[in-house]
């Protein structure tokens, strides 16, 4: 049985945000009488995460994903609720706890800007008291996994965004944390680099048994890296489960992607299923999952079909549908 490494109960975080009406008059008013609005960034969220799990926090901008990560890692104090990570209250910031976690933020860096990344690695070695032999072994493994050996002596300011992110990941993993929090780790990276980072995270999870918790706007990060997804919207947890279950529960249809040999009428196709995309000789149809084979056969029998693919509904679509449904 897997060990629970994170327990969160009724976690709540409110922020007080100053309000100002537009224009010069608004600025003067706010100078003498400032009004505040309470924002419920995270509202009564509960979950548990087991050792070695790879979990994604999903949700629109401002949903409360990053705030939750910051409370789990001890940066922010909750307004209410209980958080326990690896047996510690993160906000106590005990060194023994800090040595077992790491947080990588796609939009923040810990690397020293003017110096090569190796200098930051050496600083982290001292901060975490990593013995020489373990430091060298881990550094070798990580540099090989990310293929960055040739850039380690280049000042960080001269590295590309992707190279910097790779070095950030190395700096964050040198002390072999048991839990790795990642906030938008692939933001701004090109597709090849995103793919490399995802592959790396899976290897880290496998080789070091690291529990990985990430937030991302890229659905491929979630699909390829994580097994479980926690969806948050307007501070509330709205779904917590395996990605496969999410697809099974919410993908009630399949897509038929069809190329015709000659133009067909859209009205005719609408009798078979919901037309998502349509051009003269190409159509994308949404059909009920349980009868998709029958519908595909109907099209092949009645139309001059050049090619027909049956596609699963994309995770993005399921999530959009889920959020839309919740907003109603």
């Amino acid at each position, binding site marked *: 049985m897997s060990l629970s490494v994170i327990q969160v109960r009724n976690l709540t975080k409110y922020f007080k945000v100053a309000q100002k009406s537009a224009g010069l008059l608004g600025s003067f008013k706010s100078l003498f009488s400032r009004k505040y609005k309470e924002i419920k960034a995270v509202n009564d969220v509960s979950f548990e995460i087991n050792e070695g799990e790879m979990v994604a926090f999903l949700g629109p901008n401002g949903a409360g994903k990053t705030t939750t990560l910051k409370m789990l*890692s001890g*940066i922010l104090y909750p307004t209410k609720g209980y958080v326990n990570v690896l047996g510690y209250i993160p906000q106590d910031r005990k060194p023994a706890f800090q040595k077992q*976690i790491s947080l990588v933020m*796609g939009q*923040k860096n810990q690397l020293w800007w*003017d110096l090569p990344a190796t200098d930051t690695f050496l600083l*982290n070695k001292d*901060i975490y008291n990593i013995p020489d032999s373990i430091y060298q072994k881990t550094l070798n493994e990580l540099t090989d996994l990310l293929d960055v050996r040739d850039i380690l002596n280049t000042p960080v300011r001269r590295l590309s965004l992707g190279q910097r992110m790779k070095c950030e990941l190395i700096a964050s993993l040198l002390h072999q944390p048991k839990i790795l929090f990642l906030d938008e780790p692939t933001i701004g990276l090109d597709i090849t680099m995103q793919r490399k980072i995802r592959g790396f995270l899976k290897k880290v999870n496998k080789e070091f048994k690291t529990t990985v918790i990430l937030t991302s706007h890229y659905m491929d990060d979630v699909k390829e890296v994580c097994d479980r997804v926690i969806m948050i919207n307007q501070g509330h947890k709205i779904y917590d489960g395996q990605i496969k279950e999410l697809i099974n529960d919410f993908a009630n249809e399949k897509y038929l992607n069809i190329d015709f040999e000659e133009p067909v009428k859209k009205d005719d196709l609408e009798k078979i299923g919901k037309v998502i995309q349509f051009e003269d000789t190409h159509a994308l149809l949404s059909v009920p999952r349980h009868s998709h084979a029958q519908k595909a056969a109907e099209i092949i029998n009645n139309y001059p079909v050049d090619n027909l693919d049956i596609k699963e509904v994309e995770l993005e679509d399921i999530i959009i549908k889920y959020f839309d449904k919740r907003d109603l």
Partner: protein
Amino acid sequence: MRKYLRVFSLAFQANLQYRANLIGWFVVGSLPSIIMVVVWFNILGNRGNINGLTKGDFILYYFFMTIGWYIVGGTYCWWLGAWIKNGDVNKSLLKPFNIIIEASIREQAWKVTSLIVSLPATLLILYIFRNTIHFSLNSFQFLVLLISLLLGALIFTLLEAIAGMSTFWFTEVWPFAHILDIFNALFGGRLAPIVLMPLLIQNLAAILPFKYTFYVPASIMINKGGFNPTDLIIQAIFVVFLFIATKLIWAAGVRRYEAIGG
């Protein structure tokens, strides 16, 4: 301790990356003190002294203000304020690492770098006026000076830390940083020796911590009026008081920290 030595080494190395900064500091590093010496020489004119301070005392006093700045002074509240404002303080909350110490050590690295750069000009001035100044500390007085410098540096660092932490409440560090600068200049003796200031300033200086950063060690150095152990005791009391205040303000600040950005 090792981790902070590493920070010093990294910060020192990073300073060496910017040659223009070093050339700039070589030009201006000693300038403020030279200007103050010239001003006071003009005020002295043909008089032998003002309130017991001779030409040699003024040179020695402002020489201390130049060199003493590199030991006692700094501007780390700006580091700390910026880190709190833009969320870089997160690293201190995530790692077994104190960001206040980091800020002071990074500034210390800059001070060592800039001291090396401005030393030739400062030593040249001392050489030119070698017959005017009288440096007459015995070994005991020198030890007292070192202790006073250390306590002054601690007071200064803690005041800077408190000013930097104001960012937890007020978002911008500059109002407090400027207030601190003015108070240091006025009550700390950096503008002029406090004995030459109006009585009101002298009385206020006696109860504020700023006098105990620069002025007290400077007075020991110019060696006027003998050794006053009360000054060292007051310095020590301020260190303890400000240390406790810093701990409390940090704990309260981190509680209301919103970790904006990223």
